[in-house]
């Protein structure tokens, strides 16, 4: 009897210990699950480490307004980052970035691999800048064909606005200095490499061009759309204005990419800022500042832009080949 009582008592304690163990288990599980979930959350939230540092952006005056605005926006989001944006021209920007003087070099043109052979020089296209032809006072013409522009600026066949249907007024072409990348773009995409003849300006500044054209009767020049104002008249090329639609559709060829060159892609701050340049807020800002966002550019239409110039070359190509190329683009 005694032993039996002892046994039952012993059994009772055993049972209670089992029950307590049972009640612990679910709590243990819940804790495990919570830990797992927390660690999972932590893994996804580690990316938002606060950035800090100093960035120097040097280069293109055409891109400077956008770069400055983007820098301001970026510094609002990251208070510990200081970005300094300077002008100086595309070539100065490329020089500065290749000589490690600046972190980012803004440029309107491509870096020639022969001039800048550094293999780490990385191109970042941030937006498209449209250019437009402008005319001074007394010019009633609203549109010129590309050949007419070539004849005015290069061959000299057209010297009076009368020849293109305007008033009897001598044409004064305003030519930018050699260092101007806008001039290089103009030569490449409008003049197809031909030399310019006209009033050569001393300084390469869009505002100088604008003011000169505005004060010279019968003058014709070209500038970035961002510096266009009411003092000059914008001139269409082949009947197409420099609008986003026309450029994106490939009907207007006088435009260029805006590049931000860096040396390598290792710096987190630089790549963060460059990625920021492509984010919707900055791209919308670019649109507001008369740039064209890169998203708006359609690859298949880019292929068509060269049709005007390419058609000259394709005359010597077999027709089947050009058809194949065209099909490939579409």
């Amino acid at each position, binding site marked *: 009897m005694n032993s039996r009582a002892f046994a039952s008592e012993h059994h009772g304690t055993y049972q209670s210990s089992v029950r307590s163990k049972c009640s612990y288990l679910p709590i243990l599980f819940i804790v495990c699950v919570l830990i797992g979930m927390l660690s999972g959350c932590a893994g996804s939230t580690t990316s938002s480490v606060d950035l800090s540092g100093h960035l120097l952006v040097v280069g293109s005056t055409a891109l400077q307004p956008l770069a400055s605005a983007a820098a301001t926006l970026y510094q609002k989001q990251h208070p510990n980052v200081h970005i300094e944006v300077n002008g100086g021209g595309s070539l100065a920007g490329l020089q500065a970035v290749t000589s490690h003087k600046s972190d980012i070099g803004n440029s309107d043109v*491509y870096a020639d691999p022969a001039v800048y052979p550094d293999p780490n020089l990385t191109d970042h296209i941030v937006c498209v800048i449209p250019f437009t032809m402008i005319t001074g006072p007394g010019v009633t013409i609203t549109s010129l064909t590309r050949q007419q522009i070539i004849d005015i600026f290069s061959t000299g066949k057209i010297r009076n606005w009368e020849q293109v249907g305007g008033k009897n007024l001598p044409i004064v072409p305003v030519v930018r200095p050699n260092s101007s990348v806008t001039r290089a773009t103009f030569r490449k995409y409008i003049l197809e490499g031909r030399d310019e003849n006209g009033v050569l300006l001393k300084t390469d500044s869009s505002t100088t061009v604008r003011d000169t054209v505005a004060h010279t009767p019968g003058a014709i020049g070209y500038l970035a759309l961002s510096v266009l104002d009411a003092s000059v008249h914008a001139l269409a090329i082949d009947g197409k204005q420099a609008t986003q639609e026309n450029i994106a559709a490939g009907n207007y060829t006088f435009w260029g990419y805006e590049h931000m060159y860096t040396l390598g892609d290792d710096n987190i701050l630089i790549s963060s800022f460059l990625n920021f340049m492509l984010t919707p807020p900055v791209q919308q800002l670019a649109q507001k500042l008369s740039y064209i966002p890169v998203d708006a550019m359609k690859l298949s239409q880019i292929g068509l832009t060269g049709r005007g110039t390419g058609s000259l070359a394709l005359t010597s190509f077999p027709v089947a080949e050009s058809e194949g190329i065209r099909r490939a683009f579409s």
Partner: protein
Amino acid sequence: MRSPKLSTRPLAKTMSAQAQPVPATLHIRSRARRGNLLLDLPIGGRLTLGFLTAALIAALLVGTIGILRAQSLSRQTSFYQNLLHTNTSLTTGASFLQLMNTQTHLALDHAALPQPSQETLTTDQNAVKGLTTRYDTILTGYIAGDLLTKHVDEVALLAEADHTGQVTQQTTLAGSALRTWQVYRGAQAQILQDIAGGNLAVAQHLEQTQGEPTNADALSALRALILFDQRLAASVQDAASVEEQSQLYTTIIGSVLAFIAIVLVGWLISGTLVKRLKQLRNVTRAVEHGQLDARVTVVGRDEIADVSASVNAMLEAILGLFQQTRRQRDALTNAAEHLFSDMRVVSAGDLSINAVVSNDPIGMLANAFNFTVGRFRRFVLRTQIISEQLDVISRQELERSEVFVRALKNQRPASREAISSIRDGRASSGQLETTEKEQADLVAQIQRAREHLQHLTDEGITQQVRSVFAVAEQISHTLRRMSRALAVEAEAYSRSRTTTLETTRLHVQEVRALETLLPRLAVELQRLQQHSLQECRELDAELSSIATTTSALKLREAQPLEPLPNPSSQDIARLGSEFSSEIATMAGQLAVLVREMRTGIVAFQVETANNTLAEKPPSSNMLSMEGESALRPPAITTRPANR
């Protein structure tokens, strides 16, 4: 310990008083319905199911993780392969561009020679055109097929590493490469045209102002594209690491969930076993502590349910046995009491009692008692009848003898007259005197016989009956003791089953005592019979002597009466002869009665002897079994004793 879950179920067979509220039981059953599917499975199957489920969960987890890993690996691999392929082709394209530039310069140089070979110029032109076609194919092929926008899974992979912007970047870079290439191609075509047209100076100038810069632009744009592809590889690595991390978390969470699921399955399965076993143990413990009405709630159809049901059935059976024993005990006690009161009545003198006969041991005893009492009653009745008959006869004889004596007294004066008148017949007178004396002797003898008869009817018989009563009382006493012992036994049986053997032994002892009493009864009866036999013999002897005396008297009277033609003596002679003949017939009647009595007594003796003999084997059997067959009354007692 006495958990409220112990539900008591109504027992259909036994006591309706213990019927418990049925709805409670039904409620428990209905509540336990949900787990029934699982509970219907046998334990082995349930355990197998549990193990299989656990294995399935583990296999699913491992399989899912493996598939995820394989998918991500294959995606990465295909991405890397694509990148390698495009890198190779774009690098080839870059060298083509450089070659084009060189070849154009070569063509210009060849054309600038004083005597330009037309064949060489054509070869140069064809080489440039071939290179142009090749590069154009590479670039258009790249744009048509290798861009990220054309590969949804690659875009998804980049999205995981948060590099979605690279898709747009690539498109933009490809656009720039295409644009620069188109410009360069236009310039190149112009240059070749000029060379072919002989405008060498123009061609050279164009090459310098347009061809080389645009070539540089195209090369730069292409290089940017190549560099971008290289950066893409780093992004893929990022994405892979992100994916690996997420896979790690998936693995951890998945293992934890699988562990929980497996433990839950185990808990569920073991819960169906342990809880019910505990319940069963609670019930058995409650029964152990005396709660005989505790029952297990039977849920499901597995082995535990079987065991629970059989435990319930066992408890029912035990309870039924218990009730049966109690009822038997009560019945035995009742019967014993009845028998005892019957015996008391019999011992008080009422032989008309007939005890109630049943199939139990007490019933057997009652049967035997009835038989004995019946026997005795019949014997007493017969003896009574005989004594009454004897009484009547003796009274008749007494009257007759008184009549005869009176007649003789009347005859005496007459004979004296005759003697005095007939003096000559002395001898005859003497003869008369002797006759008279003999007659007186006869009367005395008759009186003695009557006394004997009275003696026989009165004292001896009553004495014998009293002694038989004493024996019967002893038997009844023994029976009472036995009944009491049976009652005690029944109670003891209810208390503990172990003492049954002992009480059975006690029973046997009682029966043995009864057995010893029965011979004593027989001896008493024998003595009674012997006594009456002796009396009868005496009576017989007396009567025979009376008979001889009477016949002798008759003969003697017949001789002297013939010579004496006296009317009175003739009367005497007639009366005497009548009397003697009556005496003779009476003696004969008596003899018949006595014989009857003797035969009755003898039969009684034989039957009692048979009784004692027949009752022995059952008493020895008492030890071995208590069944009804062993206690069946001996065959002889059932035989009607009508002899």
